């Protein structure tokens, strides 16, 4: 490996490079080239499936383009966007998606924090807890959705047999009860992920701080709110950012349980219906681009509003 031997030379080159920028040595130049060469395949693969399609989606979104009537394809400017943004369905779906996102992320965060504390403070059984919380993470989302659907369905499930639940309660026949089950499935599957991210943040906190606070007379609750939470802020914000964006894409559970009936459609389901079911690539692409813009706005709010430090920034030593 040529790189192994060239590393010290490169370090020398960069440290002096910051001082007075001499011409690059051959070593540094070949290291540069090797670096680019090694990254190129991964970068190309990522761009092929994201950057190019989103640009293509934008181009499609400016056209009337329905695969059922391919002859009518023509440039129509922003009229697809006007159609989407003036339809009440889009706004209902945005409200549904935001509702599912906010409620499930809030529950997941609270529950995840509790599980993280349990794993962090446990003197025994930490491995068992960690293994068992990984099981929901590993289970296919569609499988989890079916599992909960069958549990709640009146003709197969045990939920209606519980005390205080009507035997004939039709959970998927009405909007809010359907959302209850959808959110339950989401929360069950993804809380472990949050718990593990929070646990990782928790373990970086110096135990000495707790000892010192204890000596100063702080009780457990004060220690949690004055030490744990503030010091975990970066880990918390990263976990929330990832989970929020993930929840905003909610698709699998809703598709399996209701297919968007009884007003439970999410924006991803709307995009899928337009693109794949109705083959309306023009209108569907406008929905796709708008979802992309929503994701950008959420990420922007997290980074600017809460000061989420993006991993990789400081990572780059």
């Amino acid at each position, binding site marked *: 490996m040529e790189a192994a031997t060239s590393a010290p030379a490169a370090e020398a080159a960069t440290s002096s490079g910051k001082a007075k920028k001499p011409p690059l040595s051959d070593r540094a130049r070949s290291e540069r080239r090797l670096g680019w060469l090694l990254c190129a395949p991964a970068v190309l693969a990522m761009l092929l499936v994201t950057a190019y399609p989103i640009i293509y989606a934008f181009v499609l979104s400016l056209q009337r383009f329905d695969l059922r009537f391919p002859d009518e394809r023509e440039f129509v400017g922003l009229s697809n966007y006007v159609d989407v943004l003036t339809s009440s369905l889009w706004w209902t779906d945005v409200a549904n998606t935001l509702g599912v996102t906010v409620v499930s992320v809030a529950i997941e965060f609270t529950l995840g924090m509790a599980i993280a504390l349990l794993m962090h403070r446990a003197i025994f059984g930490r491995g068992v807890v960690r293994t*068992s919380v990984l099981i929901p993470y*590993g289970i296919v989302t569609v499988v989890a959705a079916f599992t909960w659907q069958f549990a709640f369905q009146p003709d197969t499930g045990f939920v209606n047999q519980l005390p205080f639940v009507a035997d004939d309660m039709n959970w998927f026949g009405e909007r809010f009860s359907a959302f209850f089950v959808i959110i339950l499935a989401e929360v069950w599957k993804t809380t472990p992920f949050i718990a593990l991210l929070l646990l990782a943040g928790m373990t970086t906190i110096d135990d000495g701080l707790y000892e010192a606070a204890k000596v100063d007379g702080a009780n457990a609750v004060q220690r949690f709110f004055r030490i744990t939470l503030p010091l975990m802020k970066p880990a918390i914000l990263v976990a929330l950012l990832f989970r929020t964006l993930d929840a905003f894409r909610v698709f699998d559970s809703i598709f399996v349980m209701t297919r968007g009936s009884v007003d439970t459609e999410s924006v991803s389901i709307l995009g899928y219906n337009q693109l794949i079911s109705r083959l309306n690539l023009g209108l569907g692409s406008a929905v796709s681009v708008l979802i992309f813009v929503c994701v950008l706005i959420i990420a922007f709010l997290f980074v600017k509003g809460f000061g989420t430090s993006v991993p990789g920034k400081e990572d780059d030593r």
Partner: protein
Amino acid sequence: MTEQRTAQERIIWLLGIVVVIFYALFPVLWIISLSLKTPATVTVTPNEGFWGTLVPSEATFKNYEALFTDGLDGPFLKPLINSIGIALIATVIAIVLASFAAYAIARLDFPGKTAVLGGALAIAMFPAISTVGPLFDMWRALGLYDTWAGLIIPYLSFSLPLAIYTLVAFFREIPWELEQAAQVDGATPFQAFRKVIVPLATPGMFTAAILVFIFAWNDFLFAISLTSSDASRTVPAALAFFTGDSQFTQPFANIAAAAVIVTIPIIIFVLIFQRRIVAGLTSGAVKG
């Protein structure tokens, strides 16, 4: 934690642990129970009660047999093969590409490093639905629609960020000087790489591979959008279209049986590699 615990505290922790284990395992046990039910017991009968619904009064493996009876023409075997093949190929390619990139980022000095990491992060947040329409159109034009390759490409691309972050974190911890030390001791550069670096890098690559595999195994959106037949439809997509397929028995129990089959390998993975999965999941995200 060196502090002394009272018996009461221990009981509370123990209770917490039991609750968490119940939380994680109960739905799994429920779907297993459903998959073992006979057609007569799968639907709720009056007066059966809560436990009667939960625990099958008579167990059968018929639901599993039904999945495989028609072999490749049956509803399940071909999708299962598709799922395994597509996820494995996507994993291998993703790990190779990610290892190149992560090695460069962890070891070499070149402009654009931060851009690669930042770009990878942006893609990790990218909404998949936004690419489904264009990919659908592109794949039809290129002849990739409803093929293995048509799913392998998006899976590997969307899992690269996770793989790169995991591998960069692992590669940064490797004491690379050992390679030079081995060469000083008389090993050839290739020997030094194979005997020193490969064993040190393997655990990280393995961890990244598990995460990529779980990602590809789990996907549903691409699987229903970019396929139209059992030629390339994976299990999650096939499950969604199962409902009308079996005319003879209620499909609930068959879906449950299929669900159990695709869940078991993941549970085995998790049981064996839990430490590595946790390390991989958290390495990339919390460093910053």
